[in-house]
């Protein structure tokens, strides 16, 4: 794994001011038109070979970030570069060769596999699609991929409903790997799984990263998992990235008050420590993404909020090498 601190390195993926708004209708008769600010002016990069963790609470736009990055949602504005070439604005057809190189693993392994397709066919689709292998060779590739993700190659002829959640997630990983991708967006790949299965999948992802030199954008809400698997971590709140740093810096020295609050909220699996810990929980709820607060979006819940916070959007700046933050109080 690369030990890049994120600056002037070798970015595989670069996201510049990525914005995604959805228009919705609200009300019994859909009478009110509104805009959901799912993603606003988000910028980050993912270095070749690293894992960038993207954390935040539900509705903060982290999954939208992943899908928009991959052009599965078309961005409202902003740019995405993959391997130094811009992918935003490309047609579906132009994207096709790039899709092979960037893949995604979804949260819910139950809905990500067609119930009418055998596991082998599901994994074989990308081989056929990108003309990577055919015939006997394809069968061998499928067997190898199943073996890679820790499944018996004989399972290729079975249907998804015969598998447990963890096994389905392995199949999804195998399908993503079949493309021989360089970059994988892992969109909460373990959230739907039990604790003991989570650890299996985390280890598998790490092993595969090493073997195939993969680059991950790892989206999750579980801070401990993100800390375990990531090299660098970005924290999102209501459609904006508020802090990004190498994980040691972020977890040992969080600068943004939201990051700090998030860390304090996570329970620790140690009863003695829990009893001694201060329990200052942040109050209130995440506001709606339809009418996000002005200025810094965290200011209504922020213990440090002061004069400029409610009207001035804090600048996204690098306070020390590789440590980015958007806060007036820092």
């Amino acid at each position, binding site marked *: 794994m690369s030990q890049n601190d994120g600056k002037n390195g070798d970015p595989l993926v670069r996201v510049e001011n990525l914005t995604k708004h959805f228009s919705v209708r609200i009300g019994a008769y859909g009478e009110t038109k509104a805009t959901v600010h799912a993603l606003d002016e988000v910028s980050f990069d993912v270095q070749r070979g690293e894992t960038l963790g993207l954390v935040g609470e539900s509705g903060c736009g982290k999954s939208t970030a992943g899908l928009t990055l991959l052009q599965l949602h078309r961005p409202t504005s902003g740019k995405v570069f993959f391997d130094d070439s811009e992918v935003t604005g490309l047609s579906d057809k132009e994207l096709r060769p790039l899709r092979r190189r960037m893949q995604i693993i979804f949260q819910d392994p139950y809905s990500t596999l067609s119930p009418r397709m055998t596991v082998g066919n599901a994994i074989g689709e990308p081989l056929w699609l990108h003309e990577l292998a055919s015939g006997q060779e394809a069968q061998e590739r499928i067997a190898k991929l199943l073996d890679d993700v820790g499944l018996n190659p004989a399972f290729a002829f079975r249907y998804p409903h015969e598998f447990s959640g963890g096994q389905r997630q392995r199949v999804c990983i195998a399908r993503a790997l079949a493309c021989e991708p360089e970059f994988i967006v892992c969109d909460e790949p373990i959230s739907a799984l039990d604790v003991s299965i989570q650890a299996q999948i985390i*280890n598998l992802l790490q092993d595969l990263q090493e073997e195939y030199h993969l680059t991950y954008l790892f989206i999750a809400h579980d801070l401990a998992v993100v800390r375990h698997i990531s090299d660098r971590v970005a924290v999102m709140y209501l459609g904006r990235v508020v802090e990004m740093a190498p994980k040691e810096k972020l977890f040992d020295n969080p600068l943004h008050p939201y990051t700090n609050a998030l860390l304090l909220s996570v329970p620790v699996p140690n009863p003695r420590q829990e009893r001694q810990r201060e329990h200052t*929980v942040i109050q209130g709820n995440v506001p709606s993404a339809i009418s996000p607060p002005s200025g810094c979006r965290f200011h209504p819940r922020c213990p440090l909020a002061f004069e400029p916070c409610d009207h001035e959007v804090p600048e996204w700046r690098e306070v020390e090498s590789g440590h980015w933050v958007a806060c007036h109080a820092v």
Partner: protein
Amino acid sequence: MSVLLDVQGLQTRFRVRKGYVYAVNGVSFSLEEGETLGVVGESGCGKSVTMLSLVRLLPPAASIENGQVLLRGEDLLQLDLRHLRDVRGGQVGMIFQDPMTSLNPFINIGTQMSEPLIYHRGMSKKEALARSAELLEMVGIPDGEARLREYPHQFSGGMRQRVMIAMSMSCEPAVLIADEPTTALDVTIQAQIVELVKELRDRSGVAVIWITHDLSVVAGIADRVIVMYAGYIVEEAPVDALFEDPRHPYTVGLMGALPSLEGETGTRLTTIGGSPPDLEELPDYCPFHTRCPYAIDRCRTENPMLEPVADASDRGHRAACWVDIREVAVQSNGAGASS
């Protein structure tokens, strides 16, 4: 302290297409007055079914086959439905996992909150509403009176769980059963809810059964912890003893599988291979043996009972395992007997 709730040999199974699934298999435990008991296990381990069995709130496919549930000496499993209703919501309050679906979307909060007060306390609708408004303020929802007229969808997830808590605590129950109350919530909201329940518990002295799949949450709130696997209690211990000196391989595995917010990060997580079983018959083997790195021959032929562990620091520390895992050199992870 005296025993408030005593569960003996509880057994619950589900009828499925091909036969039965054994969800709870002879579970025995007790809860003392004012105590908080954490119940931990993965999905399908029987933890929720156990707690729903206590007040017989099971889905139609489930049936309680055996056991006793003594609440202050009275067996809830023998009680007729009318008296059981007095227990539900009166002596036993419950909160559930998903606050989005646990409140009726068609009825306003005031009506829903006043129900237990009307049925258990004999209050008039007006009195019940006034009390409900107070209760809302107590759980941190300001302007309670106005909000009583609102419907559940007008509340956020965390707020709805607060409403559930206020409602379940309204008749000052002796036991509060919390079935994964924070699983559907974000981590900052989870922290708020945990703090709220702790505060209410300390103020009212209610005994709490807190069901969760998250060991970390239990560490912060429970006095004693039960670990369940495949419908069995595999380990039971005071919270400190459990975390410092776990004796069942499954508990050990669960702890190893948790990534941590502190310490080294370069390490690999230890894992438990495979996935938990659905028992289609009562096993004459340890249900964990296929995933257990310590398994010996006996595990395949005899199902261990929950027994006090050897030289425990606490007398209440029990585990169901044939092996004293401290004496066995830890083999390579998970490559146990199953290969």
